[in-house]
């Protein structure tokens, strides 16, 4: 069961949203429960701290209380890192980037778009439920890099190629649609990667699954995002052998 919390300072709005959520729970028959609908952020915090389960939160940005919806969300995140936060906001207060960056908000609902509210709430609820049901072992298949106090996680499946950057002490990680320059080393990253990755040279590691084509004469590997990488004669032999072996395994 996934608990739902709702916080809005306007009484009419609070009632309307509660009703919408209740209706969705009944009609969709989802395993959720509206645990609390309150005007007071403190009572919400008190209640959620007692529970150890991740929950779905709908928070109004402007609470007219001692804290804003954003402050409340930051506080919630400290106790429920896996929870799902959705902001209810006016056009004026909307700041998708801040919501996402600060508390990893899942989504936001714009008050002015009256006709869309119900659909959006339903969408958020179903999505949260789906994510909630997902196994948590996804985290193990990611690599983690620390820059100062921040830890950046990238899923191994997303990585196509890692190479040392033009800048000293930095590497560039290529995913399907982005290139990330980050302070780290090929050695440190290779240590975290699984057997799907192959080191072509001192400065380059590739994801074998994302290999598109090999030019044996010129010793160039083409990745499926169009990226190229050269490989030495010796490494080429090892790679070929590894590719053959994995083919055998598949058969």
């Amino acid at each position, binding site marked *: 069961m996934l608990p739902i919390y709702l916080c809005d300072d306007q009484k009419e709005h609070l009632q309307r949203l509660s009703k919408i959520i209740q209706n969705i729970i009944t009609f969709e028959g989802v395993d959720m429960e509206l645990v609390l609908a309150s005007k007071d952020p403190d009572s919400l915090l008190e209640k959620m701290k007692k529970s150890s389960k991740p929950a779905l939160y709908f928070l109004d940005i402007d609470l007219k209380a001692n804290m804003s919806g954003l402050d409340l969300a930051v506080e919630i995140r400290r106790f429920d890192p896996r929870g799902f936060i959705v902001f209810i906001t006016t056009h004026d207060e909307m700041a998708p*980037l801040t919501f996402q960056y600060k508390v990893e908000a899942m989504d936001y609902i714009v008050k002015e778009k009256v006709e869309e509210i119900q659909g959006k709430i339903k969408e958020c609820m179903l999505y949260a439920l789906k994510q909630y049901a997902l196994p948590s072992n996804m985290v193990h298949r990611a690599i983690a890099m620390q820059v100062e106090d921040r830890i950046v996680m990238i899923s191994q499946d997303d990585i196509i190629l890692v190479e040392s950057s033009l800048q000293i*002490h930095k590497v560039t990680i290529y995913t399907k649609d*982005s290139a990330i320059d980050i302070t780290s080393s090929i050695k440190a990253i290779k240590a975290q990667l699984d057997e799907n990755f192959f080191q072509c040279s001192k400065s380059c590691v590739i994801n074998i699954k994302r290999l598109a084509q090999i030019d044996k004469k010129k010793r160039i590997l083409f990745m499926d995002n169009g990226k190229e990488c050269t490989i030495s004669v010796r490494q080429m032999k090892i790679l070929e052998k590894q590719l053959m072996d994995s083919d055998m395994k598949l058969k």
Partner: protein
Amino acid sequence: MHLFLYQFVLFLLNAAILLFPCTNVLLYPMKKKEILVGFFSIFSILYFLVAILGQSTTFLAIGGILTFVLLYTKHNKILNACAALLGYLCSVVLNHIFTITLSMFGITMQMIETKFPLLFSFIFFAAIYLITYFIGKNVRKIGFLYDIKTPKFVTICIFFDVLICVLIFIFNIIVGEKVGYSPRVIRLNGILFFLYFVVTFIIILVIISNYEKEKKVTQKLKEYENLQDYTNKIEALYMELRLFKHDYFNIIASLHSYIDSENMEGLKNYFETSILPAGEKLNHKDGVLGALSYMKVEEIKGLTYTKLFHAMQKGIQVELDIKEAVEKMHIDVLDITRILGIFLDNAIEAALNSEAKKLYLGFAKSENSVLIVVQNSCKVEPIDLKKIYELGVSSKGDNRGIGLYQVQKIMGKYKNVIHTTGYHEGMFAQRVEIMKSKKCT
């Protein structure tokens, strides 16, 4: 045969002594292949012409090096050529230091030239190569050198000043060779040339710093104009708000008339067609400018305002997403201003060329970091994300490549920055996350 080989190596070394100090200190380094071509040309000039022309070949060789530098440099040719000449002057100064030091031990140039020229050349080459390599590496780190945009006339004057310095010196060597080297003459020459070198250098620095100052003044003036622009806009907005206040009472009055006549259908219609759209319009207008008040870093506020205003005037749909006061950037403000300026310029240019014409700028912060996101719509084209940063390569003209190359250089200085370049559904995105560095606090 032995003598032939000996001479050959000596010429190779001499060519290297001439060429490498020049190429090492270039602001825009040449490629290895280009240097190799240059090296063999200089070598052939020396090898085949020295017998005919004597020391005058040095003129030719310097001319050759300059030609190469001018030929292979793409931007700021003259500045790069000046750097090459200064590299040569470094070598000259070092040569003097060498001969003066040796003469103190009673070793004259003639003794060296007759007994062990190869050893001397080799040691000298190693020394000058290392020194100029070190100088070049450090000079290239000075960011503002790349921003120098002195008027062409001044640049050419500087170039000729340095050139004349070099020519006089070579001339002096030739005359010195004919008269014969005496240690006292060499010492005197050395001091004179060192002085000339220093004076030239100081003059160049003064000219450049003066120019920089002037640039700063105009920059300040521009900032002031920006601010004035901003004030005017705010005033206009306030006027608009007053008008709306006036309208507001009219709206209430008209609502009242619908309610009085209990015309619910008409009321609903009126509300949806007139009141809701009016509200949205008002929201959007002050949204873009109003949000800037959250930006507390004045330099960035000014820059953002100017660039976004410029973009809006060109018909780009601008979105500014900032909802919390940003006071600190955790890296040098000048650096982040330059980076953001380059990103915004590129984004505006690309957005203009796209169909959707959209530009998005977002700032967000958390306890220990700041995130900046610049997004623009672009023509759907597969861009090799890496190539954009390699000097000169650009999907839109030359300057753009230079800009992003600069960004890379600046980012290289900071370990606490994560920079992501991405492309998603027609939008090109630059994302810079700056962590609070433990060292700074």
